[in-house]
């Protein structure tokens, strides 16, 4: 019985292990491998192409002229058109220095060689010759929206405004500030201001002091 069992088991196992695949198995395997590898290489080519395109786009954006340095959506800017006023800088007389800080920061203080600086003054109403009121290009270029959805969009946009440079936020100009602004923007007044400053900076000329010798009391 034992020999018969071993023989039978050997026969069954050898029959199971002697199976043959359908003809052409190798060819089918190679065909599938070739098909998949072709698909993979196509994908890699596409990925490389997309990568190159992305790099080119980044370089193009970086080199694009006139790209705004900083986002200033919703800012109302003051631009000083008179270079003399800009060049004055902190050299103003003490009266001018005493004007409101907003005015000083907004109009007179040049930053890193720039003649003008964008200041968030929403209600200045300033529109004299030397000082022009400007709205940022992004806002001006934006299409006018109407209705509730437009309002929501504007609100969302304003909510996302960047942090302001000046704190507390400057408000409308006072009478004194207006007077200073007019003074700075008027060429005549500026010339007077310059001459006044020069006078102040000139050395004080004091006439020779002559002291008569004391007469001895006899």
């Amino acid at each position, binding site marked *: 019985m034992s020999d018969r*069992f071993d023989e039978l*088991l050997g*026969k069954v196992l050898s*029959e199971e292990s*002697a199976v043959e*695949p*359908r003809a052409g198995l190798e060819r089918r395997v190679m065909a*599938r491998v070739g098909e998949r590898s072709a698909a993979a290489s196509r994908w890699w080519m596409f990925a490389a192409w997309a990568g190159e395109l992305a790099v080119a786009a980044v370089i193009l954006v970086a080199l694009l002229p006139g790209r705004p340095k900083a986002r200033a959506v919703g800012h109302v800017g003051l631009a000083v058109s008179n270079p003399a006023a800009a060049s004055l800088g902190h050299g103003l007389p003490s009266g001018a220095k005493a004007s409101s800080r907003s005015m000083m920061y907004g109009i007179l203080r040049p930053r890193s060689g720039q003649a003008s600086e964008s200041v968030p003054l929403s209600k200045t109403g300033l529109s004299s010759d030397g000082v022009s009121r400007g709205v940022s290009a992004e806002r001006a270029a934006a299409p006018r929206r109407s209705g509730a959805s437009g309002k929501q969009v504007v609100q969302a946009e304003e909510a996302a405004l960047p942090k302001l440079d000046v704190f507390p936020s400057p408000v409308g100009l006072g009478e004194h500030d207006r007077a200073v602004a007019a003074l700075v923007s008027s060429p005549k007044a500026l010339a007077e201001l310059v001459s006044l400053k020069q006078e102040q900076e000139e050395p004080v000329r004091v006439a020779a002091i002559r002291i008569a010798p004391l007469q001895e009391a006899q």
Partner: protein
Amino acid sequence: MTAFGREEAVGREEQFAALVERQARFVYRVAYSVVKNAEDAEDVVQEAFLKLYRTGAWRGMEEEKAYLARVAWRIAVGRVQRLPRREMVGGEDAMDGLVSGESSPEDLAMRRSEELRLRQLIEELPEDLRQTLRLSSLEEMSSREVGMVMGIPEGTVRTRLMRARAELRRRFEAAGASVRARKETR
């Protein structure tokens, strides 16, 4: 791609084709021993070679046969675990030989019946014993190679083989005794 790179790729493909030519049938048998179905076995072979080609692992194979068998075996086992188990005993060759005339029809029928019973018993073995038994029955697969394929020590392979055979013998004899008893009662 440069001309050198193209030549290298072509050479690589030729080497891989030679490997497929050399081992596809063996890999098929390994797969078949697990899935017991020609269609699934071929799918396993294709998947195994595709995996090897994609990963490039086929270039660094030290023991080619054992490595390939291991890859195919893992894929096949995964496939069997995913799919519902099929009835694989019997089949179209169950009645082969009945008309061969080597022995009397009664003898042949009895022999076929015993083979069927044994196949059934192999199927009913615990999975670890069944896999070990089938892999070891494949051509030129030593216990060491079977161990490498299954990720178990060679000693464990031998132990499992002994247990599988002993278990089969016990069940086969018990089944034979019950068949004889049924005959006698008729």
